[in-house]
């Protein structure tokens, strides 16, 4: 272990300074009001002065890649497919915005979500590179990203804009896909940890114990690569988990410590990290105790763990509520922590049709304009003519504007792409807006159903996103971030999977029976014969 870190330090010192690399890590712990504890790790590697590959020059050999801290496996994928910006998240569970507030990392969509901005090129089309990227990443992260094919891919540029700068070399295009049924587990965490310079041996990543992380009420990881002009390529690996100490502790107490949450401790800091810190967001109430004691900065306690700092690594950080015998859940009604609360449901009792309804509540005393994005796989057909917007039991079509609908279109491989609905909603203060649209459920071929067909299909969540500031002037006190709704389960009608031969035989028999009788009549000559008795 020690030898490894020495080698890493040596490698770091001896790297030819083609590009300066900088690695920072950070953990934010926040006790939540429902007794849970949210933890958010972020590991940021910056490649100074590096520019994403120009896709128009994909035929020419690429410059050689020398990385000391940046993961080579990911770097190769980014260069091979000339990716300017990449976001991959793998999450499990439903983020409870009302009680937990906005997450530190906004991408909390259930399942897998992948979106990439790529420069257009005539050498290799964006779609070819998108397909290559999916397969490469699915190999790298052991996730079924390969199934994010044309049945899942769209290009919602308004909701998912470039977060960094736009390189000047080409027109950029977005490809976005999500797979809500992806299960996130240990096999995804192991390759994730391999991308870190200190792996899980030192620094904050030493806390990442899969047994604990995947036992959390909500957990997810993310890979974000963006390019900022003047800075370079920034790789941000994030891991968030929401623990429930009241569930796991014997006395139903919400006391937590890093040791109790992760069952591990930080033995030493990562030697190559330029900064490494743990910050604890302190609750508003005062009856808690935090150890080790430290001066508070803006409502949070920050512990510096970097090797360069003089302070010793605190073996454990813990928070107690000494006066509390057991944790009492706050009594409802609770004011939601986010200005918008969203509920999305699929009604209907039959397997052939239903009503998709979304209700958005504005909890703030100000009108909010929100972008609304719905990406529906062709499993459901939306009847857009039945779209209704209602608030306080009256139809208010004026509250939905800039409606853009892209129906499913047939791709060259015969699959239907998802349909996409994008609109701007204006939600009056302290009121609820209800959107409903009728849907039809598809009848699929028997080969298109998954092996567990009776379980149903997961429908990706809708996205609500704040509009760019130029479009509206909402004061910063009601600032909010992107909101993902939970996934829905669609109960599709299934054919019988056991009898393709029987159906072929029975249908063909009936057809030949009718054909035979009919042509038998047509080809016979009619004569009158005497029947002898």
């Amino acid at each position: 272990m020690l030898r490894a870190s020495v080698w890493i330090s040596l490698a770091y010192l001896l790297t030819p300074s083609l590009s300066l690399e900088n690695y920072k890590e950070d953990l934010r712990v926040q006790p939540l009001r429902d007794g849970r504890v949210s933890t958010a790790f972020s590991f940021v590697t910056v490649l100074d002065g590096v520019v994403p590959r120009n896709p128009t020059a994909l035929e020419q050999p690429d410059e050689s890649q020398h990385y000391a801290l940046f993961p080579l496996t990911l770097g190769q994928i980014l260069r091979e497919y000339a990716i300017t910006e990449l976001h991959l998240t793998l999450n499990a569970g439903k983020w409870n915005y009302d009680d937990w507030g906005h997450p530190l990392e906004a991408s909390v969509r259930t399942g897998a979500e992948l979106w990439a901005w790529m420069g257009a090129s005539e050498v290799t089309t964006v779609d070819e590179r998108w397909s290559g990227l999916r397969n490469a990443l699915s190999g790298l992260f052991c996730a079924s990203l390969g199934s994010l094919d044309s049945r899942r891919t769209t290009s919602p540029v308004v909701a998912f804009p470039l977060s960094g700068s736009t390189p000047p070399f080409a027109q950029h295009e977005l490809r976005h896909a999500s797979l809500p049924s992806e299960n996130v587990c240990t096999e995804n965490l192991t390759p994730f940890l391999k991308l870190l310079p200190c792996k899980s041996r030192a620094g904050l990543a030493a806390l990442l114990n899969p047994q604990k992380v995947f036992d959390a009420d909500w957990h997810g990881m993310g890979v974000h690569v963006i390019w900022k002009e003047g800075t370079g390529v920034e790789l941000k690996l994030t891991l968030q988990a929401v623990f429930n100490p009241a569930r796991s502790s014997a006395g139903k107490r919400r006391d937590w410590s890093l040791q109790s949450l992760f069952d591990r401790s930080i033995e030493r800091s990562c030697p190559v990290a330029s900064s490494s810190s743990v910050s604890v967001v302190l609750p508003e109430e005062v009856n808690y105790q935090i150890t080790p004691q430290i001066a508070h900065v803006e409502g949070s306690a920050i512990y510096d763990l970097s090797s360069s700092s003089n302070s010793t690594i605190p073996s454990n950080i813990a928070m107690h509520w000494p006066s509390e015998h057991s944790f009492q859940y706050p009594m409802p009604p609770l004011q939601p922590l986010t200005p918008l609360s969203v509920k999305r449901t699929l009604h209907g009792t039959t397997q052939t049709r239903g009503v998709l309804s979304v209700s958005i509540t504005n909890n703030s005393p100000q009108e909010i304009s929100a972008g609304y994005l719905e990406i529906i796989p062709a499993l459901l057909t939306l009847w857009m003519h039945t779209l209704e917007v209602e608030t306080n039991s009256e139809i208010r079509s004026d509250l939905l504007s800039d409606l853009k609908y892209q129906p499913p279109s047939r791709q060259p491989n015969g699959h239907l792409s998802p349909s996409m609905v994008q609109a701007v909603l204006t939600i009056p203060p302290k009121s609820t807006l209800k959107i409903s649209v009728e849907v039809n459920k598809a009848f699929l071929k028997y080969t298109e159903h998954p092996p567990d067909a009776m379980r149903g299909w997961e429908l990706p969540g809708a996205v609500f996103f704040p509009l760019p500031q130029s479009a509206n002037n909402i004061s910063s006190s009601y600032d909010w971030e992107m909101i993902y709704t939970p996934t829905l389960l669609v109960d599709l009608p299934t054919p019988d999977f056991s009898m393709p031969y029987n159906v072929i035989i029975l249908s063909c028999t009936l057809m030949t029976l009718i054909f035979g009788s009919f042509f038998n009549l047509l080809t016979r000559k009619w004569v009158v014969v005497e029947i002898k008795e």
Partner: protein
Amino acid sequence: MDEGTVLPVLVCFRLLLAVLPLPGQHILKHDHQINSPLTSYLRLKEGLWMLDNNVDPYMGGSFHHSPLLLSVFSTILPPIPIIWAVSDAVGAWALLRIWRARQGLSLHRATTSTAESLIVSAYILNPYLLFPSLALSTSTFENSFTLLTLMFASEGKPSSALLAIAFTINLSPYSILLLLPILMLLVTSPASQLASPRPFHGSINRIASLFGEFMLYWLVLVGAACIIADGSWSWMKASWGASLTLPDLTPNPGLWWYFFTEMFDHFRPFFLMVFSVHLVIYILPVCIKFQHDPLYAAFLLIGVLGTFKAYLTLADPGLFLSMISLFPEVHGYLRHPIVTTLLHLHAALLLPLQHILWVSEGRGNANFYYAASLVMGMAGGAGLVDACWAGMRIALGDVKVESEGKGQVARWEVARWEVAQE
């Protein structure tokens, strides 16, 4: 009731149904027995919505209607229920005129016989036709256009008939099956020749020139559709292509949907070809065998469509069943009318029941409905064979000869399985 008032009374009844707010109409609009993806009112509305919102309706996978319907309902008239009632009335009126032309009666007679009341009732009150019409399925228009075509052809109005068949084919491409008998009908007479078969006596050259005229109308309509669909050909793939490639596997009473749901992917194109060619195979044999009575040939081909076409709805066999009333001369010679009737009753009860058990109640599975659709196929096939049998059997007439000598009545029967050797 006076027989002359049957048509007006029934038409009033139908109009009343259109304007009254009937319960359950929403369920009818979603029903798979009476709406197919090609005829569903919901999809028509969706197409109109997309047109209003500057989305190409034919880009998505959900709209399959003809651009002609789209343009009519987006510019001239909104799709209101009264149009379907009027279309039903036109269909009944056309059926009546076909009857009069076949019987050689005056077209504008003041008096009406019982048979005529029966024909009108058989069309307007036929549940297989009434329910699709109440559900605002566009199959009502296809049926009315088919009957108008036959009416014009029977009355010897070539241009009108050819224009009507061009419209019908534009709405539903399978109606191409009816083109040959209609051309034959235009050069001969609609009068019943079933009892006295004779070789075709019309002029072949005239048929060729009529076919040319049809092609002209048809191309004009295709051109108009292309202009309506913003100069693109994509509507052809979305609307006509859907009948050939079956992109939507929504259940219906026909034989295609479950077969292609369960089909192995690599055999799909082959069987799609087989099922499509199977329909075309019937045209020539039927037209040759019934060359003496092309109206009857058209009737049989409508029966073939009502059994075997893709995206079948009850309106297709419904048209065939209503048209049986045009041919009273064959009723006595039907081979097994009771069996056919019972099969139809059986299918009409089983289809909605099994459909509900499968998709709503969740107590049955797809095989339940498939079994019901096989019964429907049997019923359609039995009706077709029955009609074909009767149409040929009538030529032999009733043969009952009293034999001499022994004073006994020797029974003479028609031999069924005597093979023609020539």
